């Protein structure tokens, strides 16, 4: 081997070693890539729905249990659609320590006045008796809860569409409220928009 070839071979070997080392180190950082891959493998099970309204098509609310030990809740047209959005928590704390956990989904914005469509979906603990959306005008809208079993645990699943007529008036969802059977408030989580 000529000296030039030897240098070239060593250089290539160093670059290759660097790439492989980077790949190994990168794979060990918990950047969610394991969960992202697991999401692609596990089936989605429909637990609730969002009815067609205001000229918009219906959407399903789906639960998913991954091999990484997460419970995910998605909003999507179908169980196999790539038009899927939502979130995942660890199976040992699926509601993040709250009576309910939800994702706010919207199109338009970021200012509330520019939001064209918005939905809320998620899971509630089985002992929640009632849930509602608190709107920025002070009114409350009941959310229909549906019994669902996810990973052998009982939950209440929900999906809710904010009316276009509200959004057009600048009225947005400010919080989701959970109540027990006596009507007492047991949890309130802000949506972060709606004032």
């Amino acid at each position, binding site marked *: 081997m000529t000296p030039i070839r030897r240098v070239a*071979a060593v250089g290539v070997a160093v670059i*290759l070693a660097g*790439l492989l080392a980077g790949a190994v180190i990168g794979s060990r950082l918990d950047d969610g890539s394991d969960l992202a891959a697991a999401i692609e493998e596990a089936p989605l099970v429909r637990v609730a729905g969002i009815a067609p309204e205001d000229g918009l098509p219906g959407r399903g609310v789906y639960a998913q249990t991954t091999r990484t030990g997460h419970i995910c809740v998605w909003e999507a047209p179908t169980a196999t659609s790539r038009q899927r959005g*939502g979130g995942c928590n660890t199976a040992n704390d699926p509601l993040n320590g709250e009576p309910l956990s939800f994702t706010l989904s919207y*199109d*338009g914005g970021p200012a509330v006045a520019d939001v064209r469509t918005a939905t809320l979906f998620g899971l509630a603990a089985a002992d929640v008796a009632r849930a509602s959306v608190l709107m920025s005008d002070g009114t409350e809208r009941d959310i229909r809860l549906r019994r669902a079993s996810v990973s052998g645990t009982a939950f209440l699943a929900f999906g809710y569409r904010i009316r276009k007529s509200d959004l057009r008036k600048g009225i947005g969802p400010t919080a989701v409220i959970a109540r027990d059977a006596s009507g007492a408030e047991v949890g309130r989580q802000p949506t972060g928009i709606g004032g």
Partner: protein
Amino acid sequence: MRRALIAVELLIALVVTSTALAAYQYAPPRQWSPGASAGSTYSSNWLANYFMTWGSGTDKTVTFIKNTTYGWHNTKRGGSDYLETYAPFEGAFKAHCVAHSWFTGSCNVR
């Protein structure tokens, strides 16, 4: 020697290609504060945008921003440890993530 070099070049090409197909971390793991945000480059090839966080109080947003109107599309906001949204069909968009509380996390697009 030539065969060995070709084999090494092929291997490098495979590694580079597989890296390109995997998620692109546009905001590496770090401490986030309310209002902090990050964004990817604009592309018409993004599929999904996700924000992975650790710890409690992980209120955050993921969205896609259109390159012409700068409007937000398929926005998701919530406190899940992992929050994901999908890219719109037509046009060039950038993945964008926003923190609304204090936590550690990273933003990724694929």
